[in-house]
């Protein structure tokens, strides 16, 4: 991807990242590194570190909760799980996203027609 393409991607990712995190947590609870790697793998974020401020904010807003658990290597892990409010927020996002992406898709197709 060239520079301007990267810029577009960065801007769009910024707006949806928190909902991507919520969507992942809606499937199962995850710990920080796990989430970070999943986001990078899907190319949804460029830096793993930006996840943590986001998680802190989601927690402050009551959209996710945390739970400590002993890991397999005896290490204690902080697991993130989605809350009821988080699920509601995610459902709302899904509606908005479908609406917007549908409209955008239509416009882009019109261009090619």
């Amino acid at each position, binding site marked *: 991807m060239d520079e301007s393409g990267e810029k577009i991607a960065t801007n769009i990712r910024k707006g949806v990242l928190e909902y991507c995190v919520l969507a992942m947590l809606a499937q199962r609870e995850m*710990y*920080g*590194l796990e989430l*970070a790697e999943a986001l*990078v793998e899907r190319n949804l974020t*460029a*830096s*793993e*570190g*930006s996840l*943590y*401020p*986001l*998680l*802190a*904010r989601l*927690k*402050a*807003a009551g959209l996710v909760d945390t739970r400590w658990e002993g890991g397999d*290597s005896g*290490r204690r*892990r*902080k697991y993130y799980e989605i809350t009821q409010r988080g699920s509601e927020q995610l459902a709302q996002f899904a509606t908005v996203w479908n609406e917007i992406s549908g409209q955008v898709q239509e416009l882009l197709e019109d261009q090619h027609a």
Partner: protein
Amino acid sequence: MRKPKKQSLVARYLEELDSELRNLPAAQRQAVLADVAEHIDEARGEGRTDAQIIDALGSVKDIAGMMSESVGEEKVSGADARYRLKALGIAAVFVGLLAAAVDTWLYPSTGLEEVWPDWLPSSWINYGMSADFGAGLMLLFMIPTALVVVGAVIPLGKGQVYRVLAALVLSAAIFLLGLNLGVFYLPLVLVGWLMVAAGAANRNPERRVKQISLGWRLLAALVVLLAPAMLIAGMVSGAAVGDGFSVPIAAVLGLCGVGVALNWKAAHAALLVIGVLLLAMSVFSMGMMVLAVWLAGAIYLFLGLVGVLWLNPVRWLYRKN
């Protein structure tokens, strides 16, 4: 397993992050730091090298930037609004006390009795009584202050109607009291309207502030620069003989004007201090210029408050963990 050299790379990264996050509330700062430390620990467990881990985490500036961005939104804006209201409440007490002091002193000489209808409060007390019961009269003049200060302590959402009403009533009261006495409530009225602004439920006040910030600052700079410009012009043309203080005063005000345009914290704070000093000065050495000094003080105080509370918030005032 952990070699000292590797640890120092990580340690330095965490230290830098800590320092980048210094403006955050302690709880959030610690949460992010703990999360990142755990992330590094886990990633080491997966066999990544420290250099790889830190590279993938991204720059500390980006992480801190992400944090302050989210801090600017919903959740914390409530805390910001409460903080602003509290600060404005203190300002209201100060300017209200001064206004009451001036008006108590001024009242007997206004001769309002002759034109004032009997049923209006200010004519209940005549000259003789005000000399005997000066404190009581001052208490009466403190009522507008109490009206405004209450706005600082009632809840954010529901209290907004009250704050708007108080500001409206006070604005009207300036004219009701007559300009002679009422004009001294101008700073209080300004603080009252700032409280309305502070309490205004806005989903994204920080962004709003950014949008209007530059225009506001340029206007404020013009207002601030007016005084030193006139002072210097007066000295150059010989119309005013500058005493020893004129040059430093012009210099300080000029610097403040430039600083406000550039959004310097120190300049906003200086305006606030100058405003407070001018207001206090006009009370304690009342002469011919009292009204001009008072009005100038009101303007500086107003601009200073807007700067310190909105344009470039003085964060250290927030920290009380």
